[in-house]
């Protein structure tokens, strides 16, 4: 029934790998290897040396050097890439002391860095790793007009420096009533006001940049972390990740991008299927909400088929685990892709949306997202169709280290 993970060779190394060997020499044999960089390989072998993929091909063309740890699986895929999460910041217990994904003291705080908040040891990071997720784009959550920065991390490592792939990936913005305030002195209280304060902030950032450029060295304006970050968005050094679900909010996001000539990525985008032409014309990628998000409030019209509708219209998409303020405290992006695969995406499209397509949208496709020589040795091993409810992830490898052998 279940394909046992470790079969031969250096079986005894087993768990000690987790703590000791930095970059083991590993070979994985798969009945089917989905490389995501060309056709899948029947009876394929992937060899990892010093954390990087060194060989990939059919078993009769790849020789496994002596002494390598050899693992077997029915299905081998690249380590999964979760294109948007809050895991590591929104901790497992959901109490104040482990919830660092949102800071409500001001509506616009792009200076908040995810690396200052990500807990590499949160149990939910471990949880998603056991399903094959090796890379996450995580950080500040939807819920303020600009809530802070995001980062890209591997799901295994001791300190933030061990796991960080990209320190500052995007700046997270929310155009939705979820980021509006109730009560008299609170602002922004309406959609109109929210756009107004966002626009004002960008205009201030432009002025700040101009002052910096013009002023003599001794007359430079004081360093302003917030405006500095907004300036990076204006310079298109960093993208604005805009969470917007209702069609009108998506349209506002596109309008903002056009006015300030900035690069944006649409996030969640429950009603994106109503604006396919507009999104396509703007050339904006979409990180679609988890298929199994609750269909309430701004997302009451969400569809299991949104990912398929956008993908088939030629819009770049990826899937995500998203943010959840109750249960399940973290979603598993593999499960979300499974629902998309059952609702219009082909198997390859669905797998791409949590591997190479996600890596491309995040700009880390040179490192992760496919099984190619020179890329990071990140693999996920399954005992059957990874999307099937009753299949199991039987192993996860990050940078050549076996980081999970739990059968789950």
């Amino acid at each position, binding site marked *: 029934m279940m394909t046992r993970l470790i079969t031969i060779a250096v079986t005894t190394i087993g768990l000690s790998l987790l703590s000791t060997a930095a970059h083991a020499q590993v070979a994985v044999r798969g009945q089917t290897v989905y490389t995501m960089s060309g056709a899948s390989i029947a009876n394929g072998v992937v060899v990892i040396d010093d954390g990087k993929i060194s060989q990939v091909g059919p078993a009769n063309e790849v020789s496994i050097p002596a002494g390598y740890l050899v693992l077997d699986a029915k299905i081998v895929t690249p380590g999964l890439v979760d294109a948007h999460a809050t895991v590591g910041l929104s901790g497992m217990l959901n109490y104040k002391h482990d919830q660092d994904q949102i800071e409500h003291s001001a509506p616009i705080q792009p200076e908040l860095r995810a690396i200052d908040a990500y807990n590499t040891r949160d149990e939910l990071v471990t949880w998603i790793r056991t399903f094959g997720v090796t890379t996450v784009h995580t950080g500040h959550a939807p819920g303020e007009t600009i809530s802070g920065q995001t980062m890209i991390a591997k799901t295994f490592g001791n300190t933030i420096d061990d796991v960080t792939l990209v320190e500052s990936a995007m700046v997270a913005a929310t155009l939705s009533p979820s980021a509006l305030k109730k009560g008299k002195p609170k602002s922004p209280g309406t959609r109109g006001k929210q756009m107004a304060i966002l626009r004002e902030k960008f205009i201030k950032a432009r002025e700040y940049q101009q002052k910096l450029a013009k002023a003599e060295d001794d007359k430079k304006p004081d360093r302003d972390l917030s405006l500095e970050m907004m300036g990076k968005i204006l310079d298109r050094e960093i993208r604005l990740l805009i969470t917007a679900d209702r069609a009108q909010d998506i349209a506002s996001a596109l309008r903002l991008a056009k006015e300030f000539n900035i690069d944006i990525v649409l996030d969640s985008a429950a009603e994106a299927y109503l604006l396919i032409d507009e999104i396509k014309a703007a050339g904006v990628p979409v990180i679609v909400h988890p298929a199994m998000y609750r*269909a309430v409030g701004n997302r009451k019209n969400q569809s299991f088929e949104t990912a398929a509708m956008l993908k088939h219209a030629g819009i770049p998409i990826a899937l995500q685990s998203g943010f959840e303020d109750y249960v*399940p405290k973290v979603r598993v992006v593999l499960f979300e892709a499974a629902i998309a695969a059952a609702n219009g995406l082909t198997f390859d499209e669905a797998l791409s949306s949590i591997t190479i397509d996600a890596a491309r949208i995040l700009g880390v496709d040179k490192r992760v997202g496919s099984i190619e020589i020179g890329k990071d040795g990140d693999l996920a091993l399954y005992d059957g169709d990874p999307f099937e409810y009753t299949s199991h992830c039987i192993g996860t490898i990050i940078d050549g280290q076996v980081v999970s052998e739990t059968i789950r």
Partner: protein
Amino acid sequence: MRYILIVCVLIFHTGCAVSRAQSDVHAFIGATLTPISAEPIADGVMLVEHGQILRLGKASEITIPVGAVRHDVSGKVIMPGLVCTHNHIGGIGGADRTGPIQPDVRIFDSINVRDAGFKRTVAGGITTINIMPGSGHLLSGQTSYLKLRGGNTIDDLFIRDSDGKAMGGIKMANGTNSRRDAPFPGTRAKSASLVREQYIKALAYKRKQEAAKEDPAKMPARDIGMEALVEVLEGKRVVHHHTHRHDDIITALRLAKEFNFRVVLHHVSEGWKVAKEIAQSGVPCSVILVDSPGGKLEARDLLLKCPGILEKAGVKVALHTDDWITDGRLFLRMAAMAARAGMSREGALKAVTLAGAEMIDLGDRIGSLDVGKDADFIILSGDPLSVYTKVLETWVEGNKVFDRSNTQDRLYAVGGYGAGNELEPYFCCFDHAEGQ
């Protein structure tokens, strides 16, 4: 205007009387039948008449009556309509903030039958649900067992017992959800104490009732809360008890034993830690699975393997959506996830059908494909535990209430613009659902 409306309604009624599916024998031919109470039957035939299952068996063994409406369902799978023992759809509101124990509150006084949740739920293959008030109280009110017949008012959905009474249980909770500022309890011990006090009062009320020997002059003053608790003490109303942590589970069992009430444990996140004790008590469990542990402290050890461990210990196990915690359209997925983590395939399918039916005292009417039971069933495109399988049709008492080939029904099954809105009112029967 009013005159025209009356005429329309009359026409609809007449039309219904003629076309009502119940009046004919319907033959479902060629599917794999998954009765739950018996081994699956490949290439089967099921006959339905007057809203009940008339016969089922291998195609070679069943004679299809002349004139029967024939449904070719070859290659499909038919299984009983799913039963969800714990559900919150309908925009409900149960007990309020005035106190922690409110047995007088009936949830059916708050259910909006036009809530889109009803359409999503039948799209997921669910035909019977137990709508309950929430877990923010030690006792948040009376629950309501409903058939998803479609319907214009809540009365159309009631399941009535042999006395004609709308069936339901009572909702209780322990652990952290029901703890808050006074008059609510601040600790677990206070929670148990408040519950015991109320049941002791109910016992006294019951004694007064009995002493009156049906003499109205001697009866105690009516107290609708106490009346509901007396029904619990008499075993007429099952306690549906929200509980997560291992010690809270044991507390619920202790209270059930002290007051001899019938109880179903709900959620039971840490049930795997006390599986043996639950099995010894003979109390059934309705478990919820979500995709990760945590979200609150008492759910940190919620594991996908819990239903499988309980099953192996000999506990009767059902599953529930807790909709809106999980979506009714994904109920079969939960069964599959239980199987993924070690529950038997048979046990997982039973957990979303017959086991749940038994926990709401309806095991003799629904939950399996058996002759004489209500014709509540679903037609699936394939293996019930596969992600790729779709619910194609849902039937309740011989009427089709969901058809994936109908554009409007599909909208609720898949989602899309308008799926979140209230339903259009029905004027009659199930014509709308049948796409006519």
